[in-house]
């Protein structure tokens, strides 16, 4: 407190003394200058007057060559002690007489300088004309010592020094008496401020002692204290709230500074790591929670971020291993963000103990593996059963053909050998048998083809689909199946698939479309596609008989038909085969239709990667 006191008083005193000295110096300088100039002017006037008198008195002596008189006249200058030399010259500039008598003639100018007055460092030299009437008779030279000026100035200087000392002393004494009025309230304020800074007690208020600027300052100071107090309260509340939020967080929140020292540690972190907040604060984070083999990486990471601003691990969820107080290592999920406030760098980490989650994940993983194994087992069982079934149906179908051929053969023989003996009814029956056996043969062939398809391995390659469709349509044209049909083919991209079976899909779908639109007046067929995310969807659309969407689920079943054989021939295997082929390609198939308003069949294949 004492330092502050002398400081403000010292400053005031210094200012006052400085002003005092400055004013005095200025005044004295002006006075000096005035004195100097007037002194010089005065001496000049004196010397001029004296010179004029001497010159006037000397005229006759010069005119009549009377050196004695001249010397007498010059000797009169003895009365003026400051005249150190004088001399008279005749009109030719020759020295005529000089004063004092014992003066060395060589110290006098010869011939005399031009008329006028000249100040040199220690004397004033005057040169005057000696004229009687209008005739110039000679020249008078006078040398006047201005030592007196310097003596006088020295005396003045001494006076000034004494004056400055005296007035400074006076100013100091007056200041001692008067300064209290100014400095006391300021010192009181400073003491208040110091007390506040010392005790952090913002409830203290300064006492206003006057209505001047210091009083205003006191008011402003008190108002500032009010604001600080309010802000302090708000800050404390906000800080408490923040702490409460941090403590209620389910994650451990840890804040470290750029040196890796812990500067915040919430309750959850206490629980996770076993260190209390007070124990953790100020500790090196690496040594506290990071396993020994990861510490170097952590420290290098912080340095790298400070130096380059690159933080590849920042703002990301990471799973790491941490260590508890008891030395146990455990898995954590961690995200770190860098906070920059007022150029101070801190890192904030949110840490979740994922020991339990890891256990659960482990359990789920084991369970999934079991499940997968089960699926594999079941699938192989199912495949085995399926193969059995296919083998069975294949052998059954195959074995069915022999007796059927026998039935067909014998009926033919019957018709050839005994045809004429049989009546019309017998012929009709035989024809029914023939037709049904043929139909059964067809059914068996289709069934064989279908089951063969199940066993067949697909060989995938890029299929130029537009060419394939063109080729299929050509075949139908040649057989006259599409004489009246208007065929419209849009842009067809290629796709990946097994050449033979995909061709079968097109054959089946196009023949279906031709078949069911045959009865229409203007049958139309439209083939097109659209692509999305490497998947090409092809469609075949006709304006034929269509079907009732109520029976959609029967559409792709084997031997399932939505129309009678009389209306439209067929075995009911075509669409089943198509579905099977598309499924084997991993594609999808579906249809839309309305009775008597045509049907559209869609299927998808994987787009050719290079297309």
């Amino acid at each position, binding site marked *: 407190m004492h330092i502050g006191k002398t400081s403000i008083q010292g400053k005031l005193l210094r200012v006052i003394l400085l002003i005092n000295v400055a004013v005095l110096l200025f005044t004295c300088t002006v006075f000096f200058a005035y004195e100097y100039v007037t002194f010089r002017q005065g001496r000049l006037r004196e010397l001029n007057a004296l010179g004029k008198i001497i010159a*006037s008195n000397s005229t*006759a002596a010069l*005119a*009549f*060559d009377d050196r004695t*008189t001249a010397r007498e006249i010059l000797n009169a200058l003895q009365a003026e002690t400051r005249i150190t030399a004088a001399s008279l010259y005749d009109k030719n500039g020759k020295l005529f007489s000089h004063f004092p008598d014992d003066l060395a003639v060589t110290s006098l100018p010869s011939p005399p300088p031009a008329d006028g007055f000249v100040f040199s460092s220690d004397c004033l030299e005057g040169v005057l004309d000696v004229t*009687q*009437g209008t*005739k110039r008779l000679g020249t008078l030279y006078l040398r006047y010592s201005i030592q007196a000026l310097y003596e006088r100035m020295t005396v003045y200087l001494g006076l000034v020094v004494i004056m400055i000392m005296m007035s400074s002393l006076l100013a100091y004494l007056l200041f001692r008496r008067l300064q209290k009025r100014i400095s006391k309230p300021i010192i009181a304020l400073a003491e208040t401020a110091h007390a506040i800074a010392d005790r952090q007690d913002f409830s203290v208020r300064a006492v206003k002692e006057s209505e001047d600027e210091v009083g205003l300052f006191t008011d402003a100071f008190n108002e500032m204290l009010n604001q600080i107090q309010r802000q302090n309260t708000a800050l404390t509340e906000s800080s408490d709230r923040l702490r409460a939020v941090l403590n209620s967080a389910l994650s451990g929140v840890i804040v470290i500074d750029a040196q890796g020292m812990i500067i915040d540690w919430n309750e959850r972190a206490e629980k996770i790591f076993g260190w209390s907040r007070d124990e953790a604060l100020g500790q090196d984070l690496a040594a506290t929670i990071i396993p020994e083999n990861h510490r170097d990486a952590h420290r290098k990471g912080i340095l790298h971020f400070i130096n380059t601003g690159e933080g590849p691990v920042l703002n990301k969820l990471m799973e790491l291993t941490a260590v508890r107080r008891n030395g146990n290592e455990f898995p954590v999920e961690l995200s770190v963000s860098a906070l920059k406030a007022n150029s101070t760098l801190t890192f904030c980490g949110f840490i979740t103990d994922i020991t339990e989650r890891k256990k659960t994940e482990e359990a789920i993983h084991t369970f999934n593996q079991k499940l997968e194994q089960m699926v594999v087992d079941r699938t192989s069982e199912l495949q085995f059963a399926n193969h059995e079934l296919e083998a069975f149906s294949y052998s059954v179908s195959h074995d069915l053909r022999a007796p059927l051929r026998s039935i067909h053969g014998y009926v033919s023989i019957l018709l050839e050998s005994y045809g004429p003996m049989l009546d019309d009814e017998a012929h009709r029956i035989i024809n029914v048998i023939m037709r049904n056996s043929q139909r059964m043969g067809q059914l068996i062939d289709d069934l064989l083809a279908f089951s063969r398809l199940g066993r067949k391995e697909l060989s995938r390659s890029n299929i130029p689909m537009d060419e394939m469709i063109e080729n299929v349509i050509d075949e139908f044209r040649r057989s006259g199946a599409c004489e009246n049909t208007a065929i419209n083919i849009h842009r067809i991209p290629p796709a990946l698939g097994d050449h033979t079976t995909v061709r079968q899909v097109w054959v089946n779908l196009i023949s279906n479309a031709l078949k069911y639109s045959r009865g229409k007046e203007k049958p139309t067929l439209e083939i097109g596609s659209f692509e999305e995310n490497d998947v090409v969807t092809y469609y075949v659309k006709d304006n034929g008989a269509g079907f009732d969407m109520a029976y959609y689920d029967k559409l792709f079943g084997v031997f399932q038909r939505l129309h009678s054989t009389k209306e439209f021939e067929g075995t009911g295997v075509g669409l089943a085969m198509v579905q099977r082929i598309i499924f084997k390609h991993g594609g999808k198939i579906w249809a839309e239709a309305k009775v008597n308003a045509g049907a559209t069949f869609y299927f998808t294949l994987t787009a050719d990667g290079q297309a």
Partner: protein
Amino acid sequence: MKCRVSLLWLALSFTLVSSREIAQRDISREYQIKAVFLFNFTQFVQWPEAAFPTPDGPFLIGIIGRDPFGTYLDETVQGEKLGDHPLVVKRIQSPDDVVNCHILFVNASDKADVKLILEKVKDKPVLTVGDAPNFATLGGMIRFLKEDNKIRIRINLEATKKANVTISSKLLNLADIVETQPH
């Protein structure tokens, strides 16, 4: 023999000539100074207005008796003026002309001659100057006298006052003051 005599004569005559020349030069120097003094008197002496018949009439410096100045005086006053009056040197032939002069240099050693001339200019504004031994005491106004090889001045103040010619105190300061004495 005759030859030797003539040589001696020649040598003697040379000596005579040279000594006379030296004397002549001393005299010349003396009158040179006196010529300047005569001129300088115009600066230290005041004549009454009545001394000048016309405003630009000449200021006459008269020389009566033999002229000892040669050309010095003429050279000294050459082109000089006192006020509007040009300075003119005049050799006086007739004693009656002296009254027109402003300065009259009297070159006479005979007391009677001096007296006669002074009588002519008595009470007239004519500054009489001379170097006769008793010139001033006879009633002449300024006398030159030689003292320690220097020219000194002696003034008869009474005479100047009578003549209404005013002499500057500065000049009086240098001069001896004498009075007219009965002779």
